Structures are given as C-alpha cells and as structure tokens.
C-alpha cells in the first residue's frame, strides 16, 4: 500500500513535470513578443528591453527553463505580463473559487445521477426510463455555456430571480474571514444558478452509466440469489445492486472531474465566476503566459489529484482491489 502510494505520487510529480515542461516550451515557441501585450504610448524599444530584463526573458533558454522549474517547486509562477504582479498572488483565491463551484456541483451531480440512474434502471422498460434518458442525453448534448446563457436569460434577465453572475453582490461586507463570505446568503444566491447548471449538465453521465451498470448488475447471480434469499426489493437495490453498480462509475469519477475542472473555463466565462478558468481564458487572450502556465498547471494538478483521490476511493469501495 505504502509502495503504491509512493509510486502514484512519484508518477503524479512526473506528470506535472512533463506538463510544466510542455507549457514552458510551447510558449517559448509562441510567435510574437511577450512584452507586446499593451499598446501604450509610453512604449519604446528601450522600455520593452527593460521589461524583458525584468521578466528574465533576456537570459538563455536553458537558464530560463531551470529558473522556471525551480520557481514552480516553490509555487512561484513568475510575473504576470498583463497584471504586473506575481502570478502566485493572483491564483490562490481563484483556485478556491473554482473548487467552491466545481466540487459541490460534481458531488451533487454524482449523488443525484447515481440515485436517479438506479431508479430508472429499477423502472426499466417504462416511460420514466425513456423520458429520463432522452432528457438527460439532450441536456448533456447541449453546450453547457449555451444552457448557462439560456438560464441567465430566463432566470436573471427576465424573471430577475438570480443575479447575472459573479460571486458576490457588490459592496457586501462580511467581515474579515473568508468563511463568512462563503457562508453568506448572498454567496449562495450567486452560487445557485451556476451550481444548478453544472449539476444538471453533469448528471447525465453518471445517471446513464449507473443505469447500464445497474442493468448489468441485475443480471448477476448474486442478485438472483438475494431474491431467492427472500430479500426485499429495496434492500437488494440499495444494499447490493447499487453498491456493486457504483464501482465502475467510481472509476469514471476522475475522468468527469477532469472534464468538469477543465470545463470551468467555459462555465466561469458565462457566469463571470472569478475562478481559475476565467483567469486562464483572459490570460490566454492577452498572451499573458506566466498566468496561463500557472492556471493550466493548477487545473492539471486539480485533475491529477482528483484522479488519485478517486483511485483511492475505488480501493475503499471495492475490497477486491489490492494496491501493489
């Protein structure tokens, strides 16, 4: 077990290293001058050189690379071209915002999806099943940003129930602690719409998967034996069928989590949610590559750590898995 953990963690580090290196070299191949990010009348060739010196871009590539890796180890992603600040200062709060949006939505989507999937599998062959399948598929097939836009259109613009986006109403003060901010009613008011959209959008996958997994489990001998044992329908479904059917779904959790975190770039854009994804999109648009690198790596870390946690979770759920 310990060896497995060490192996996994080493591989995670390797993955992050590879991605970091990839990012570094990809951006060094970028056509264009990184100092060319603002048109300012103060701009002069001299000023640009000064900026390059300040960003350390005048050094040879390998020196830049080693410095870059060294900095990453210290969680320092350099200096934003656009924002004239340390990138690390910018992303910490953003990451929290992204997690606050994505994690609860994903957990809700999974929990609901699994329960609904089990339910429609139980009701198989009926109208409930077919209509939920159609509805869920259609919902998943629509681009999430479009659904977000429609929801804003209906609930914010027309019905005026929810705010148009963002994380808090302007001018709300909640004292110093971040907790107070995230526990405030206002936060939930802003959180509700994007949360619902992400949840509804992500429900489909676990639901359909759970349904087919349940159908497979229903065919297993032990389920039949449960019936022969005189076990009640509910007990069979909740205690035996669902737990077993959930296993293959647990393996997809990291995948979906990865998609969701990656998909945050779109959803945060629609809802102006000040998270990593939005920051990254803005940074890419400004060729602010230290910020892009940092956001990308942070999103990757979330994905990779998510994978890892899900793997461990799977081991807890399925006694047959022995880590070696």
């Amino acid at each position, binding site marked *: 077990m310990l060896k497995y953990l060490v192996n996994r963690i080493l*591989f*995670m580090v*390797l*993955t*992050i290293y*590879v*991605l970091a290196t990839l*990012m570094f070299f*990809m*951006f060094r191949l*970028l056509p264009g001058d990184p100092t060319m990010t603002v048109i300012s009348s103060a701009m002069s060739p001299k000023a640009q050189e000064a900026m390059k010196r300040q960003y350390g871009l005048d050094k040879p590539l390998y020196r830049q690379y080693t410095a870059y890796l060294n900095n990453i180890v210290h969680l320092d992603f350099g200096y934003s071209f656009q924002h004239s600040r340390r990138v690390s200062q910018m992303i910490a709060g953003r990451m929290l915002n992204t997690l606050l949006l994505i994690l609860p939505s994903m957990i809700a989507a999974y929990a609901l999806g699994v329960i609904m999937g089990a339910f429609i599998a139980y009701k*198989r*062959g009926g109208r409930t099943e*077919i209509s939920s*399948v*159609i509805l869920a*598929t*259609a919902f*998943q*097939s*629509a*681009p*999430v*940003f*479009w*659904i977000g*836009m*429609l929801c*804003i*259109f209906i609930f914010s*613009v027309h019905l005026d129930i929810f705010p148009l986006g963002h994380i808090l109403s302007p001018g709300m003060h909640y004292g110093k602690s971040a907790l107070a901010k995230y526990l405030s009613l206002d936060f939930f008011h802003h959180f509700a719409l994007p949360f619902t959209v992400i949840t509804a959008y992500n429900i489909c996958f676990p639901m*359909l998967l759970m349904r*087919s997994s349940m*159908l*497979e489990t229903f*065919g297993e001998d032990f389920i039949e034996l449960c019936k022969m044992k005189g076990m009640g329908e509910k007990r069979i479904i909740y205690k035996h069928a669902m737990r077993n059917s959930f296993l293959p779904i647990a393996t997809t959790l*990291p*995948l979906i989590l*990865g*998609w969701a*975190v*990656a*998909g945050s*770039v*779109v959803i945060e*854009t629609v809802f102006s949610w000040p998270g990593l*994804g939005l920051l*990254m*999109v803005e940074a*890419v*648009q400004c*060729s602010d590559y230290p910020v*892009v690198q940092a*956001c*990308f790596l942070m*999103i*990757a870390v979330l*994905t*990779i750590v998510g*994978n890892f946690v899900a793997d461990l979770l799977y081991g807890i759920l399925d006694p047959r898995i022995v880590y070696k």
Partner: protein
Amino acid sequence: MFTNDGGMVTVFLNSLKMVSGSKLGLAGLVVFIVCLGVAVFAPVLAPYQPLEKNYDAAGKLMKLHPPSVQHPLGTTLLGRDVFSQVIWGARPALIIGLSTAAGVILIGVNIGLISGYYGGWIDNLLMRITDIFMGVPFLPFIIVMLSLTGRSMVTVIFAMVIIMWRSTARVIRSQVLTLRERPFVDAARISGASGLKIIYVEIAPNILPIALVNVAFALAWAIITEASIGFLGFSDPDVMSWGTIIYRSFASQMSYKAWWWVVPPGAAIMVLVTAVYFIGRAYEEMINPRLQKI
C-alpha cells in the same frame, strides 16, 4: 486492413442495422442523416450567404430583426440571416466532428491495439504516456494549443485529436487485453500468424464494434468541444460554426435581447449531438447484451 469476410464494411452495415433496431437509435440515425443532408446541400437550402448583410426596402440595414417570413430566425446585429448561418454551420460541425472522430479512432485504436497486444515495456510506455495525457486538462490545453498554432479549422481538429485519443486508447487496450487471452488468438498464433496479422486480422475486427461506439462518442464530444472553443473565441474566425455564432451574439452583448440569435445554433448543436449519442448508445446496448432490455 479489414478485408476479407467479416470486414469493416460488413461490420459497419451490421452496426447500422443494429442501431436502427432501437427506437432511439433509429431516431438518432434519421436526425444525423438529415444533418448530413443539410451540410451537403447548405448552398441550396440557405436563402442567404452567412455573412451577407441584408437591407430593408428603405435601404436600411436590418439590425436584429426578429423572425419573419423573410428571415425565419431573424437577423444578427449586422443584418445577417441567422437561419442561413445555422444551416451553413452544419458543415463545420460535421467536418470537424467527423475528422476529429476519425483521427481519434485512428490513433486511439492503434495505440490501444499495440499496447494491449504486445504488453510488456511497450504497453508500459504507451500507457504511461496515456496516463500523462489523462492528466492534461482538456479544454485549457486546446485553448493553449490554439493560441500558439493559430486558429484554422485544421489546427482545431489537430488540437482535439491530440488530446482525445487517450480515452479511446484506454478502452481499446482493455478490450484487447481480454481479447488477447481469448483462445482464438492462440489458435491464430499456432496457425503461424505474425503479431501484426493477429492484431489486424484477428483482434481488430473484434474491437471494431467498441471502436464504432467510440467514434460516436468522439464525434459528439468533438462537436461540443468545437462549440466551446468557438464560444471562447478560439476557433477559426473565417468559419461560421454554431459555436462562433453563439459567441458573436454573446460578444455583441445583444444575446439577451435577441433570443433568436442564440437559441437556434445551440439547439442545432443539441439536436445533432443528442442524435449522435443515441446512435452510440443504441449500438452500445446492442453489442453489450447485458444492457439489452429483455
């Protein structure tokens, strides 16, 4: 590659037959074929050019006109016909979707086959590479790629293929791992077949159904992803794809005033992707008898 009996064509035709056996599958197939038709005959079906500006009788630009007989889905901020744009948008959607799916399958299936069949260090290497790719955040990576390579349709496809093959490779590999242990592979080996012959003659036809399911899902994913890329403003600016239409309406800040500009392209994506999903799911249920409704 899959000539001879039980070849690719047969499997494909069989799969079509199987898909149409399910109601949802049939519906998906019909919608998909209609979309294909729309894409092919877009010049005939679309009343206007996608970027054509329309002026009213008084010579005024028809800005944001709501749906009318002349413009069934209204006009955009610069007087362009939304209906025509949506029709033309079927082309990039299908071209990008199909080529991405093809690329994904080509890479994914081959890596899966080789990795799964040969095992050992080849498998180890390929799967570690796949694992690394699994850690790559999908959309962000594509966005970064596109910001580096420029935003033509080819680079969009390339960017998607380069990252989407990973899950196909995994699925195919696990399939090959079980197929490899099947006695018919041993039987082929003792008939004197070489490794490549076993992979492509014996194993490949058997993973074709799974590969076809993956084609469907990759196709669906590619279309949605292209739309997302378009929405973030990173897709080919010269191509009026559905995602780009939505993005332009979003960027014009008029999307909440002119629903007819936003709803149709999104609905088109939804309908097409749903159809593709239905096809894939119907086929998946057919090839996995345990999922069949009894």
